[in-house]
């Protein structure tokens, strides 16, 4: 079987964080901010969703952290190699409009999703404030790109090694005290989105979060990605991935993200063992 989707470039951005440009015209030409794609690396691969972090010509950019077998395996692929399947763009695009002042917040590898949203908001005439946060300075990604797009950019690190010592939610709190913010986007780990969106709830400011539950088909067919939003069951793949943060049951999301913890561990261990036997271990991890 022919692998159609060539990796045009592969770069390591930070520890366990990689940036790939993949040739996928059908995705690149239609991608909008907030959407994702699904990859399947090979005949025996699983389907995993990855946020579309940029699109240029016939190529899309994905930025991912190696958290399991498939992302580890993807990170071993070099420019010039190919991926068997890329489907997308999937999900509803971000609700872009001219709202006034918008804040786009990315946490960790979730920063990957922020440039297209910030850029489209900017194009729509908004004053765009970016907040990007990571555990430490060396894990911070896309700072230059976000600085270029946003009218203002704030940096936070958990350990204070760069920017504000603390969390994105701390900066957001301060901004809320100082001025009016009309819309907020938060993309990051579930717990970060839960905590950060709590800041905007008292003021009743519409806040979007991009959810990342486990998916299979990504087209609304299986319901693996169902999330509880405002007491209703929604499918993140077709009803989302962005939802009103103040309606999301984050605890259920986090619970459902752990369904296959044991199997994920098995798959990862088996993959690490296989790579050691093949003499490929170590170096790729950087």
């Amino acid at each position, binding site marked *: 079987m022919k692998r159609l989707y060539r990796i045009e470039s592969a770069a390591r951005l930070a520890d366990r964080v990689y940036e790939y440009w993949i040739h996928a015209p*059908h*995705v690149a030409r*239609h991608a909008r901010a907030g959407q994702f794609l699904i990859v*399947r690396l090979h005949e*025996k*691969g*699983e*389907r995993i969703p990855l946020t579309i972090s940029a699109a240029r010509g016939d190529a899309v950019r994905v930025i991912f952290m190696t958290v399991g*077998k*498939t992302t580890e395996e993807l990170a071993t692929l070099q420019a010039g190699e190919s991926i*068997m*399947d*890329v*489907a*997308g*763009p*999937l999900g509803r695009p971000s609700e872009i409009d001219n709202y006034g002042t918008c804040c786009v917040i990315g946490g960790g590898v979730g920063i990957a999703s922020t440039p297209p949203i910030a850029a489209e908001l900017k194009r729509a005439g908004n004053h765009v404030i970016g907040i990007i946060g990571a555990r430490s300075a060396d894990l911070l990604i896309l700072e230059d790109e976000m600085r270029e797009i946003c009218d203002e950019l704030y940096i936070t690190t958990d350990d204070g090694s760069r920017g504000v010592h603390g969390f994105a939610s701390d900066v957001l709190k301060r901004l809320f005290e100082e001025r009016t913010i009309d819309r907020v986007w938060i993309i990051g780990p579930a717990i970060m989105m839960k905590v950060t969106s709590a800041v905007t709830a008292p003021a009743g400011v519409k806040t979007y979060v991009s959810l990342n539950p486990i998916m*299979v*088909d990504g*087209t*609304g*067919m*299986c*319901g*693996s990605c*169902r*999330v*509880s939003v405002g007491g209703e*069951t929604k499918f993140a793949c*077709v009803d989302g991935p962005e939802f009103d943060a103040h309606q999301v049951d984050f605890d*259920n999301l986090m*619970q*459902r993200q*752990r*369904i*296959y913890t044991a*199997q*994920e561990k*098995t*798959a990862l261990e*088996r993959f690490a063992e296989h790579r050691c036997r093949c003499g490929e271990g170590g170096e790729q991890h950087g």
Partner: protein
Amino acid sequence: MGERPAEIRIHDFEEVDLGLSPDEAVAEAERCLQCKKPLCVKGCPVGIDIPGFVHQVAEGNFPAAARSLKDQNMLPAICGRVCPQETQCEGVCVLGNKETPIRIGALERFVADWERQNNPTLPDVARPTGKRVAVVGSGPAGLTAAAELARAGHAVTIFESLHAAGGVLAYGIPAFRLPKDIVRAEIEQVLALGVRLKKNHLVGMSVGLDELLGYDAVFLATGAGLPAFMGIPGENLNGVYSANEFLTRVNLMHADAFPEYDTPVLHAGRVAVIGGGNVAMDAARVARRLGAKVYLIYRRGEEEMPARRAEVVHAKEEGIEFLTCTNPIRILGKGGVTGIECVKMSLCEMDASGRRSPEPIEGSEFTLDVDMVIQAIGTSPNPLLVSLIPGLERGRKGNVVVDKNGRTSIPHVYAGGDIATGAATVIEAMGSAKRAAAAINAMLKGE
């Protein structure tokens, strides 16, 4: 050759029914009365010349039988296995009045299998017409329309959102009823007619509506892929699946072979499957093969199950325990599933559809200890694409409204299969696709 014994087959995904040997096939075909006005053909949604191909089998002329079959049906090995013949061709066979009907499905399967193993031949393809047709979805309806239109000389492109063609044939029906190499082989035959297949392409997302509607004709066959959930408490616990998800993980993604394949599925000791249709039987029997004790919970009686009788029998043989006149009211657990609370149902009143309407019996609640729940209570038309097409009329259940020839409210757009009818059978989808393909062909030829 019969069926593999239940105690053996529950340990694998190999086919249950072994099919007919050539001698058995000839002997069965010889029973056919060759009726002058064959009722069986009327009972076949795709109009196969049943007496014709059965006669060829009786003569031992299997290649001629295969040509005859393929003239009306490009997916005979699939239909021979999954069609509900007992309510269609075999159901109206006059031999059924006195003895047993001709086993038309088994003969169709035999001929198709024989041909696949002995150099398949393709039907003739007409000279190119220069017309382009887009088929959306590669399930039974999409494949059938594509084959018909390609044979008429049109340039057909199928758009499929998944990484594999076949739709429900690939993700839904388990290998022990429909082996996946057979599905692939019959799809290859359709593609060999010159049909182009674009996988990983979601129309409306990866393919613009302008591009779609720019084809000379469009056939929508996006299926009824949207799974229903009961809406009872505990549904979002880990270990609660839609049948679609559970079956997709195993049938399409090979989660049964995890970790050799990357997709996992939970393995439970005790599984409750909710529903009484073919999909419920499939889910129950897959769960059994993954090693579970399986309960099948259905709110009506066994005789009212919409599943094919043969599948009910197979499920029972394989040790699935049926809890009929039982309805789940809550799924119990914290994080994962620990049980399911049910109530017994009485069957007294007839409802509007003529089926008795079950009512809960007060005080009959009980809890079943299970660690997985699979809901197989139906699916509805996939709204993803059809809701995006301006001017496309849809029915109350989200289905695309069509006339008997598959015409929609947009002149050059047709629809067939489950997206038009709601969830139905493979062969009904194929029948509607054939009618639509004939209408599309007539339109393109300016008739």
